[in-house]
C-alpha cells in the first residue's frame, strides 16, 4: 500500500481539473467533506442553539407574553402569547437530539476527523473516499429529516433526546409530537447511525493502514489517537442504538410489544399490547448513550492536547499515559451505563457495581487533567485564540467532571436524579467542553482550511464572552438542581418551593442571551474571514510539528507533493534542547545533539 500511496502520479499537481460541482459539492476529497460536515453542523448548531434560547425565554419568564414570537409560530403559543407546554417539551427533545448527534458528534468526528486524518498521517485521502462522501450525504439527509420534525403537523417529539419507552412507542395517543414527529426522529437517528458507521469504518482503516513512512502508532498526534478510539467506540455503540430503534419501529408500526408493557390504560381504554419491558429501552439506549458521551469528549481531548502543546511550546506531558488514559476511558465507558438508571428500581447491589465502575473513570480522567496541567506548568504560553479555548476546555472539563463524581454515586444520585444539577453537569462536561475544543480546532486549523486567518481580536472577545457566559449559564444550575428544580420542567413557578430560586432562572436566561450573541460574533468572524481574513503567507503559521503543516494553506487536492512525507520523530518536539528552532517538524531528520545525551 505504501507504494501506491507514494505514486508520483497522485501528486498535488497531477490531478485533472474538476468542475465546480465535483470539486466543492459532490467531492470525494476528505478536506471538502470535512468542511461540509463542519458547515452543516454549524447550521444545526444555530437551530439547536435557538431552540435552547426559546427554552430559556420560557424558564426565565414563565407566563410571559411573547406576542411577536406567537405571530411567527402560532401553533407554539396560545392566544395570550404564552408558550404551549407541548411546544416546550418538543424544544427540549430537539435541542438535545440536535446538539448531541448533529452538532457534537458530527463536528468533532465528521468535521475534524475527515479533515485531519489523512493530513496528519501523511496520506492523500481516506481509505474509501466514495464511502466517505456517501457518509456525508446520508448525514445531510438525517439533518433534513430531524429538522423536518419541527415542521410537521403535530410538531416534534416530546419525550426528550433519550426517547424513553413506552412514551416513544405508543404513537400519537400520548402526545401530538409522538406521531409523525417521533417517526422522523427514529428515521433521522437510523440514518445518522449508518452514516456514522461508514465514517468510522473509514477512520479506523485509514489510520491503521495508511500512515506514512516512519509514523509508528506511538508517534501519532493525540488528535489521531482520539479519533481512532472514538471510531472504535462508535463502531461498538451505534449498532446497539440501531437495534433498539429497529425494535421501537416494530412496536410503533408492527404491533409488537418489545417495550410496551401489558395493561396500559390510555384514552379511556386498555391498549392491546402485552408483555414488553419499558426498561429494556433504557438499557439499550444507555449502553449506546454512555459511550456516546465519550465519542463526543475524546476527540475534544485529543484536539485540546495537541493545541495546548503547540502553544505552550512544550511536549505534551506524558504522551503514553494520555493514550492509555483514553483507552481506559473508552473501555470503562461500556460498563457504566447503569448510572443513568439508578432510580429505575435497580437492585442496590447492581447500583453499587455501577457506582464503582463509574468512579473508576475518574482515574484516567484525572490522569489526563494532571497531564494537561503538567503541559501548561512553567510554560511560556502563547495566548492565541486556539490556546485560550483549549485552556477553557480543560477548565470546563474539570468543572463538569467533578459533579460527575456526585452523580455517579448512587446514594447521591437518587437525590439529584432528573434535577438541574444533572443538566449543569452534562452541559459543562460533554457539551460546552467539547464545544470549546471544537472552537479551538476551528481557530487553529482555519488557515489550513481556507488559507486565511480568523480575526484574532474578535476571537478573543468571543472567547471571553463564551467563557464567562457558560459559567454564568451553567454554574447556577447546580444550585437550582440541589434546590429541587426538575429537569425538563415547563414552569418552575408551578411549585411554591421553587419560587425563591426564580431569580437564578432569570439570571441564567439573561446570561444565555448574551452567550448566544457572542456566538453570532464567531459566525460573522468565520464567514467573513473565509473571504476577507488576513492571508496566510506560509505553510506553518503556528510553528507546529505535525504533518498537516507541511502542506500549503489551503491544502491542495492530493495533500502532499509528488512524494509523501517521511516521519522521523514524534509529534511533540517543542523546545528541544540544542535545536535551532523551538519546534522540530515530524519530518525533520536526525536527532539534536542535546537530546542524544538522555
Amino acid at each position, binding site marked *: 500500500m505504501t507504494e501506491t500511496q507514494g505514486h508520483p502520479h497522485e501528486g498535488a499537481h497531477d490531478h485533472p481539473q474538476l468542475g465546480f460541482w465535483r470539486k466543492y459539492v459532490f467531492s470525494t476529497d476528505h478536506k471538502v467533506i470535512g468542511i461540509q460536515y463542519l458547515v452543516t453542523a454549524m447550521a444545526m448548531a444555530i437551530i439547536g442553539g435557538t431552540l435552547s434560547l426559546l427554552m430559556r425565554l420560557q424558564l426565565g419568564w414563565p407566563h410571559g407574553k411573547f406576542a411577536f414570537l406567537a405571530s411567527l409560530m402560532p401553533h407554539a403559543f396560545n392566544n395570550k402569547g404564552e408558550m404551549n407546554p407541548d411546544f416546550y417539551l418538543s424544544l427540549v427533545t430537539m435541542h438535545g437530539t440536535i446538539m448531541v448527534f448533529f452538532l457534537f458528534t458530527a463536528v468533532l468526528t465528521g468535521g475534524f476527523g475527515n479533515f485531519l486524518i489523512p493530513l496528519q498521517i501523511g496520506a492523500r485521502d481516506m481509505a474509501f473516499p466514495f464511502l466517505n462522501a456517501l457518509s456525508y450525504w446520508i448525514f445531510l439527509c438525517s439533518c433534513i429529516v430531524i429538522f423536518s420534525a419541527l415542521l410537521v403537523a403535530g410538531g416534534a417529539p416530546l419525550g426528550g433526546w433519550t426517547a424513553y419507552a413506552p412514551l416513544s412507542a405508543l404513537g400519537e395517543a400520548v402526545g401530538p409530537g409522538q406521531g409523525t414527529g417521533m417517526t422522523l426522529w427514529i428515521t433521522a437517528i437510523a440514518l445518522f447511525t449508518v452514516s456514522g458507521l461508514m465514517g468510522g469504518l473509514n477512520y479506523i482503516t485509514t489510520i491503521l493502514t495508511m500512515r506514512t513512512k516512519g509514523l509508528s502508532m506511538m508517534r501519532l498526534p493525540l488528535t489521531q489517537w482520539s479519533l481512532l478510539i472514538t471510531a472504535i467506540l462508535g463502531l461498538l455503540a451505534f449498532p446497539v442504538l440501531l437495534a433498539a430503534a429497529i425494535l421501537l419501529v416494530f412496536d410503533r408500526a408492527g404491533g409488537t410489544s418489545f417495550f410496551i408493557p401489558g395493561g396500559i390504560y390510555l384514552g379511556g381504554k386498555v391498549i392491546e399490547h402485552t408483555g414488553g419491558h419499558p426498561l429494556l429501552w433504557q438499557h439499550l439506549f444507555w449502553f449506546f448513550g454512555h459511550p456516546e458521551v465519550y465519542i463526543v469528549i475524546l476527540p475534544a481531548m485529543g484536539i485540546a492536547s495537541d493545541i495546548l502543546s503547540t502553544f505552550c511550546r512544550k511536549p505534551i506531558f506524558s504522551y503514553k499515559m494520555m493514550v492509555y488514559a483514553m483507552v481506559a476511558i473508552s473501555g470503562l465507558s461500556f460498563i457504566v451505563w447503569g448510572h443513568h438508571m439508578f432510580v429505575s428500581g435497580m437492585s442496590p447491589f447492581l447500583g453499587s457495581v455501577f457506582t464503582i465502575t463509574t468512579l473508576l473513570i475518574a482515574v484516567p480522567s484525572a490522569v489526563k487533567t494532571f497531564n494537561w496541567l503538567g503541559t501548561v506548568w512553567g510554560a511560556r504560553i502563547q495566548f492565541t485564540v486556539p490556546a485560550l479555548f483549549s485552556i477553557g476546555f480543560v477548565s470546563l472539563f474539570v468543572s463538569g467532571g467533578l459533579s460527575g463524581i456526585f452523580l455517579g454515586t448512587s446514594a447521591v444520585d437518587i437525590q439529584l436524579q432528573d434535577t438541574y444539577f444533572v443538566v449543569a453537569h452534562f452541559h459543562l462536561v460533554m457539551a460546552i467542553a467539547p464545544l470549546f475544543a471544537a472552537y479551538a480546532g476551528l481557530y487553529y486549523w482555519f488557515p489550513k482550511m481556507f488559507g486565511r486567518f480568523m480575526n484574532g481580536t474578535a476571537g478573543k472577545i468571543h472567547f471571553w464572552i463564551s467563557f464567562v457566559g457558560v459559567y454564568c449559564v451553567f454554574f447556577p444550575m447546580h444550585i437550582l438542581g440541589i434546590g429541587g428544580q426538575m429537569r425538563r420542567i415547563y414552569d418552575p413557578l408551578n411549585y411554591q418551593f421553587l419560587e425563591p430560586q426564580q431569580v437564578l432562572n432569570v439570571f441564567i436566561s439573561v446570561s444565555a442571551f448574551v452567550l448566544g450573541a457572542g456566538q453570532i460574533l464567531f459566525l460573522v468572524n468565520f464567514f467573513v474571514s473565509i473571504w476577507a481574513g488576513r492571508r496566510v503567507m506560509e505553510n506553518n503559521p503556528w510553528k507546529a510539528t505535525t504533518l498537516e503543516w507541511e502542506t500549503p494553506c489551503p491544502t491542495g487536492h492530493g495533500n502532499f507533493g509528488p512524494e509523501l512525507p517521511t516521519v522521523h520523530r514524534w509529534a511533540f518536539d517543542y523546545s528541544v534542547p540544542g535545536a535551532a528552532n523551538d519546534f522540530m517538524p515530524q519530518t525533520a531528520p536526525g536527532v539534536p545533539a542535546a*537530546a542524544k545525551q538522555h
Partner: protein
Amino acid sequence: MAELTQKQRRGGILPPPSDYGGGPRDSGGSFPISKAYLATWILLTAIIMLFAGLSSAYIVLRGLPEWQNITVPRLVWANTLILVASSVAIEFARAAVRKDQFSVVRQWLFVSGILGLSFLAGQIAVWRQLVKAGVYLSTTLHSSFFYVLTGAHALHLAGGICGLVVVLWRAFGNQLTAANHEPLKVWALYWHFMDVVWIYCFLLLLLA
C-alpha cells in the same frame, strides 16, 4: 527568540522529550491485513454489535412471565443445511482459485449463490408457513423476535448476494487468480460470518 534556560524549556518538571522510536518500516503499509479485509472485519464487528443488541433484548424479555414460545417450522433445519452447504461451496471455489482453475471457480461461486438464494427463498417459505399457522409478527414476543432476527439476518445475507455479483463479475473477467483473489477472500469472510450469525440466531430462537 531569547535563549531559554534548560529549566524553563522543560517547564521545571518535564523529562526530556522522547520520540518512541519508529522507522521507515513503521508505517501503515506494514499493517498485516489489507484495507478491504480490515474494513470487512470492522463491518462485521458492527454487525456483531447489532445482533448482540437484539439478542440481549431477547434474553431479557425471555425471562418475563408473559413469554410464550411458538412452534418453529421444521423447514428452518433444511434452510440451515442449505446455508452451511453454500459456505462449503465457497471453500471449493477458494481451493480452485489457488490452482487458477477459472471455470471451476465460477461453477462453485454459482453453486454457493444459488444455495444462498435458496436459503432466502426457504426463509420466505418459513414466514409463509408461520402466517398460515396464524403466527404473526405481533402474536407473541417469541414470534416478534423470530421475524425480526430472521429478517435482519436475511437482509444482511441479501447484501452478501450483491457482493457475490461483484465477485462473479471479477471471476468472469478472469481477474481472480491464485496470486490475487482479494474480492473472493473478503466476500468469503462475510458469507461465512453470515453463516455463523444464522446458526447463532437459529440456536437462540429454537433452544433459548
